[in-house]
């Protein structure tokens, strides 16, 4: 039964698929380079080396020894916050306060250690920009394998998304506000970590057990059309 339905979906949705593929080409990685450093800055090699020792031991497990992403933490060389940082004015507060909602602990580091870590991160970003592309990144184009028309049907039908959401209401222009992995993650579980959790979160959690991978990619493809 499922196979038959699935076949019909594919036949009917050829147009949607082509649209998704065209868009995928338009958003190739080359068109979306990592955010460029806003304020170019240089650091003494000794400080960068000292920073590497501190970074690897304190931050490397989650963010990678090369700051390009590790077991749980993001690639810092592609981070908007790092791009906008000037000598630790953005990085420092995050490191000192942590991001408890994302599982990052707070660190109390000496000013010298903090400055050295900042130096190392910027140096790694400079190197990554020179090399081009992130090694462990997920590009928006990677995610666009779904069928937007099938996603719309799922959204309004089996998925039950339209019971709470409206593409002309809360989701209007969602793809202009979020893209790529961020959009997918929000679609799957829009965690704001607020207390108490909004009632819709449990519906999203339950939905995670219902999606097929095709459903997930189809709904994502549909959301991408909501510019």
């Amino acid at each position, binding site marked *: 039964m499922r196979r038959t339905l699935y076949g019909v979906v594919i036949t009917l949705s050829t147009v949607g698929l082509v649209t998704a593929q065209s868009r995928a080409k338009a958003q190739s990685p080359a068109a979306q380079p990592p955010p460029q450093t806003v304020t170019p800055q240089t650091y003494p090699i000794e400080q960068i080396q000292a920073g590497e020792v501190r970074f690897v031991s304190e931050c490397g497990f989650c963010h990678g020894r090369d700051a390009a992403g590790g077991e749980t933490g993001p690639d810092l060389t592609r981070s908007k916050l790092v791009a906008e940082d000037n000598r630790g004015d953005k990085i420092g507060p995050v490191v000192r306060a942590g991001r408890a909602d994302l599982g990052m*602990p707070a660190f109390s580091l000496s000013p010298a250690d903090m400055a050295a870590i900042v130096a190392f991160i910027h140096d790694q970003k400079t190197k990554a920009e020179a090399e081009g592309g992130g090694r462990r990144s997920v590009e928006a184009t990677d995610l666009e394998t779904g069928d937007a028309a099938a996603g719309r049907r799922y959204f309004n039908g089996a998925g039950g998304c339209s019971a709470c959401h409206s593409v002309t209401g809360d989701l209007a222009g969602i793809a202009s506000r979020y893209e790529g992995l961020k959009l997918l993650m929000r679609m799957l579980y829009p965690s704001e970590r607020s207390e108490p959790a909004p009632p819709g979160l449990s519906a999203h959690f339950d939905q995670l057990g219902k999606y097929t*991978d095709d459903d997930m990619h189809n709904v994502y493809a549909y959301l991408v059309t909501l510019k």
Partner: protein
Amino acid sequence: MSRLLLGICLTALAYGQSDSWLTFHGDYSGRRHTSLREITPENVAQLQQVWRFETQQNPQIKASPIVADGKLYITTPDNLWAVDTRTGAELWHYENPRNNAFHIGHRGAAIYKDTVYLTTPDCRLIALNAKDGKAKWNVVIADSNKGYWSSNAPLVVRNHVLVGVSGDFDNLPGQLKSIDADTGATQWIFYSTPPPGAKQPNSGGATGGQMWTTGTYDPSLNLVYVGTGNPTPVLNGAVRPGDNPWTCSIVALNPDTGKLVWGFQVSPHDTHDWDANEVPVLADANFNGQARKLLMQASRNGYFFVLDRTNGKSLLTRPFAFVNWAKGIDSQGRPIPDPAKFPSPSGVLVAPNESGATNFRPPSFDPQTGLFIVSAQDGYGIYFFKSGDGAYGWAGADYGVAGRAFLRAIDYQTGKIVWNHPIGEGAGTAGVLTTATGVTFSGDVSGNFLALRTSDGATLWRQSIGRIGNGPISFELDGRQILVVGGGSSLYAFALPKEKR
């Protein structure tokens, strides 16, 4: 000191003794079950703080303390403190020099005669005099420049100090070393995946399988049981075809020779970072009408396994949390990975997520109720691999999407969930301790120390102490039952008020 020497005998270690907590698990069985009976469901709400020990450092305590001869030993990466069990006062502190290996956590110390053992992030094993913390010797157990690090609480069996390492950011063979407790000399090395230059590599090209948690030991069979970690490259399984033994496995080793006696793979051909390092818990118990020597593991991959520990044969395999990655169970009792859930270029939604249905936080087995109590997570992650991610180290990307944390009681004979106590969003980090009086101690994700009724999971008492990163322990001191648990970067000792006992 003589009492200590007597204390470290095998019979005491097999099922614990009341005035100490001699290994990561308290004893060799890994059950984390105390025979002390002073604290009961009726009086647990009267527990009071006896002392608090602050490391005065950043890192959360993730180590299980050990207690011997009136002293408690607690670790963080590069640090070991000896603490007076009566007052919580520091007796001595040992600090390893700064180094650039990963400092993500440390699981605890080990003790043998009058020596305390500490592993370090830069892969040293340091033998310290229990009296004053002076180093007796300091040996390198692996090359941290290659990407190994150690957080391991060693397991001591006679004069063998078994030490493991971590290292799945690089393609490194899995190794467990036995070090001579007196001299620091290497006695043997067990490789879970072939070392460089091995003549007949049998792992399908996989490296990894690190043994970074503390094993258990059966003195009557003279077998050590250790869980092994995930294969490397981690998310790219295509370059390492086959089951990749002995990654994501439980292995039984002879502690005198390091020879493999049997192995059981809980996750053949893992592509999700689901180390099988969770405690292999030992119990001698009836299993469906037959007296058995059992080994039980609630594994990171979401399945609860019961094995006959004499031969590694499966008795039960059943999920204890959300799973969607297996097509079924094979004739040997192993889950069959579903290729549709291998990491892919556009991503696949997988349950559990990378942090797992459980993890290194230790569970407890209560022999009275037959309940195996574990800090579990129902969760989902999204897993990616594309050819550009290569074949080294992580080789892919994955992201946790959502999780719900529970303390969950499993009937060891059927695998059925008997009760399920929610502890918050995400994953719990606290281990579990059960008592002979039917109390279960653990923690929630909000930093509360919890006492539950073992039979049904009902809350008996709670106290906010900060996020708990270790398993609570219990021992008797001056005729009084003491509980010690870590909250944040402090250790807390609790007991009943003296006058009300």
